[in-house]
């Protein structure tokens, strides 16, 4: 109880802080800065003033539609094969309520937890969280022990089981390391949305909203504030960056 009180207070504080920043920036030279996100100069690193997050509305998610999955595979150079040893960064999950029989379909991806178990358990620190909340694997120090895959409550991670070639230059990946959704960090850093979100928009479903959770004016923050949403496995108190509506 007191925890959630604290986090509310914390949210409030961030709200005030961010509003101040936003106000300051709007008064600054020339440009208007409102939008889904604020992109930054290349030499500026990811900042803890931002927290990237996503809101997925399952009522808008198309049953049988998997455009987000296809877009992810194309962007990140995955084969799209679904054998037990193939990588899947995002997948469509169909769930049926056992008591009521209500059926839903939703995309499941790395939830980019604030208290990420994969980051906690990684022996070398290869599993890491950026200042802006994006959880990544540093393949330069990943030893391929797969403990993070044991620890992840969302089965979000895959292990690369065979040698790879012709990777996307922006998305290095290779044999023997663990990998997962990066929120398309290469796109986010240049001011674009993740590929899955863009594909969902293009399809016209608009079931996935992406943006800065710490910016009260962002579309995602406003949507989160105006209606109820939940974390998957909220009991674990991981404070995920991805939240769902309609489940």
């Amino acid at each position, binding site marked *: 109880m007191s925890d959630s009180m604290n986090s509310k207070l914390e949210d409030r504080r961030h709200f005030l802080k961010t509003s101040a920043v936003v106000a300051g920036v709007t008064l600054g030279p020339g440009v208007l800065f409102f939008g889904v996100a604020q992109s930054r100069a290349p030499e500026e690193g990811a900042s803890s003033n931002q927290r990237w997050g996503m809101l997925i509305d399952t009522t808008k998610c198309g049953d049988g539609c998997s455009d987000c999955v296809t877009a992810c595979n194309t962007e990140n150079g995955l084969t799209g094969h679904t054998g037990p040893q193939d990588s899947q960064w995002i997948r469509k999950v169909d769930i049926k309520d056992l008591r009521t029989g209500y059926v839903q379909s939703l995309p499941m991806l790395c939830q980019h937890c604030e208290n990420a178990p994969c980051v906690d358990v990684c022996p070398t620190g290869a599993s890491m969280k950026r200042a802006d909340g994006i959880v990544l694997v540093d393949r330069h120090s990943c*030893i391929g022990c797969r403990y993070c895959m044991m*620890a992840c409550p969302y089965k979000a991670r895959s292990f690369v089981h065979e040698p790879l070639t012709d990777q996307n230059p922006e998305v290095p990946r290779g*044999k023997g390391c663990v990998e997962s959704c990066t929120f398309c960090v290469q796109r986010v850093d240049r001011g674009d949305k993740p590929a899955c979100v863009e594909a969902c928009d293009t399809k016209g479903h608009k079931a996935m909203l992406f943006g800065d959770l710490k910016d009260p004016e962002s579309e995602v923050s406003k949507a989160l504030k105006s209606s109820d949403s939940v974390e998957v496995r909220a009991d674990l108190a991981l404070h995920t960056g991805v939240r769902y509506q309609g489940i």
Partner: protein
Amino acid sequence: MAQQLCINQGECRTGQFFALLALGGLVVLGALFAFFTLEHHGHILTGMNNQIVWGLPHVFAVFLIVAASGALNVASIGSVFGKQVYKSRAPLSGMLALALLAGGLAVLVLDLGRPDRLVVAMTQYNFKSIFAWNMIFYNGFFAIVGLYLITLMDRKLKAWSKPVGYMAFFWRLSLTTATGSIFGFLVARAGYNSALMAPMFVIMSFAYGLAIFMVVQSSMYRWNGLRLDEGVRRRMKNLLAVFVGASLYFTIVFHLTNLYFAKQWEFERFILLDGGIYTKVFWVGQVVIGGIVPLILLFMPRSKDAQSMCFCFLAPFLVILGGVAQMYVTIVGGQAFPLVMFPGHEVQSSFYDGVVNAYHPGIYEWLLGLGGVGVTFTLTVVAVRVFKFMPQDDFQTLQARRSTD
């Protein structure tokens, strides 16, 4: 030349010694072959996948590591609790602990996705990770037990064996606690996520380690045509029975607790009733072969002189088999059970959500896993041959003590 090699042997059975060595070497070579093949082609050749991420190699590795800590038990009882019978067995116990740990770690390392980055694993530590702490405990175990062995075997350093023995005792308790916690700290999975994992691994390590010690000891005595003193035999037998009983007790408490929690029912149903191979391995392997049968054998009344009725080899051997079964159920069974993401929902996806994950270990996993046993076996055979590890009992004191014990 060869004559000089046999220090402990009553008769120098050099041919047989080299045969054993060749056998162990062959198994180790098999593991190396598997390692280089996987290093080149990737884990695609194994039965492990994105659902069962830890397979047979980990079953053997964790078993050997846990047993390593337990094998040191005999030495600890000697040095820490001052029992003479165990003191004379301390060097053998320490050596076995090192050989077992070496075997277990070898498998663990050879199965890594990037074994070439071992240096990274040894130099970059995330201190929030219990796995990182385990690396420190494993490396420290080698150093401390190595030192302990030196103090035990060098006459001049004998006085140090007690303090170093204490240190080794606490160190290996920490080690097994940490190893159990690798599973205990996994918050998301129904099969783990329990503080009981740590003490359960500690007590199981006592049983597995002592069982391995007894098997090796029996083999050494038989090899040399000697007969283990009846009193020593009885003590170790009773101790093993206590450990096996305690392991069963922890298993019962673990499952009873789960049976009380409605959210754990599905998992318990899986392990205890309808989990196919895992249910069988649990009941037949872990409970019956590894628990009940050894207990019956150990407590079976028998006439004192009947050499044929001694189960000092068979009973501990069954405990070892049961131990491997337990690790299989804990490690693979825990992953085979579908991860619960949406309680109260039926789940379906292309990523095998909501289904019992299949695992068919391939030849490379067997080679890797057995290779760990091979490393332990080879190291033990060589060490026993080259150094003086045969327990040196003072039979007069034993006789005198028997009346007082």
